[in-house]
């Protein structure tokens, strides 16, 4: 039983930790490498589109991972690396869209809808539309 559980564990969870990042891409400096990993998780793979470049096996994702590391060794800050890629590929390359006037609709819509919902329910309650005596 124990063996079976163990086997099941490895089957289910090991593939999840399989890395797209190849050993030959990694940087000698562990600090820089961990920064590169964090940045890579914020950049979208434009070929696969649902994945970030840290987990994608696509050729372009690898090229961008190497680019991130190249910029870091050149002394860029994390923000500089991200904006370097964003300048060339646009907002879409960022997994999390930037908060800017052009994206306000995107960021505010959920709150507006939620607010509208609250207002709606509040009105119903105030007018006695929801009756307690039924329950």
């Amino acid at each position, binding site marked *: 039983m124990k063996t079976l559980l163990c086997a099941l564990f490895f089957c289910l969870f090991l593939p999840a930790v399989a890395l797209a990042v190849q050993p030959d891409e990694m940087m000698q400096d562990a600090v820089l490498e961990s920064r590169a990993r964090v940045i890579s998780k914020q950049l979208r793979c*434009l*070929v696969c*589109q649902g994945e970030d470049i840290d987990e994608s096996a696509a*050729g*372009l994702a690898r*090229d*961008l991972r190497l*680019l991130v590391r190249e910029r870091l060794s050149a002394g860029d800050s994390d923000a500089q690396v991200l904006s370097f890629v*964003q*300048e*060339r*590929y*646009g*907002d*879409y390359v960022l997994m999390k869209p930037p908060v800017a006037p052009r994206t306000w609709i995107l960021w505010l819509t959920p709150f507006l809808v939620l607010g509208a919902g609250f207002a709606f329910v509040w009105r119903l309650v105030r007018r006695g*539309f929801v009756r307690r005596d039924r329950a």
Partner: protein
Amino acid sequence: MKPQLLALVPLAVFILLLALFAAPLMRGVDPAKLESAMIGREIPDFVLPAALPDGRHFDRDDLAGAPAVVNFFASWCVPCQAEQPLLARMAAQDGIDVYGVNYKDKPEALAPWLEKHGNPFKLIGADDEGRVAIEWGVYGVPETFVIDRRGVIRLRHVGPVSEADYRALFKPLIAEVMK
């Protein structure tokens, strides 16, 4: 508001969403084709070695002062074959210089491919690492750019240029930048 009327709200929202989602589908918008962040910007600085043994290198200065079409392609890219005649037409009929960036390719594969599918390119640079493609914001081949006289990117087309793309997008723009 009357409760009866209120009951129609979900239906109205549903129809609204349906229209919202159907509109891009009907227009044939491909979500995999992304807009370029490079439109309206100057071409990036780049130097590429010659893709063919008897060719010359290709760099930013080659694009100075004259309008141009820059095509990112590879011999391993099947859709690239389809657009070769149209690139040739741009060069021959519209009289614009067409340049090629050979993306992650091998010279021994490139030469026979050009022989078979035609070579509309004034110069072909080799981007073996795909590093220059990143500078241009390219995320796959083929991609085709139209650059005006001032070296500003005016159009980026993702995927092979079809006859319809040529007529609707390229021909009018090339005529404009050639003026």
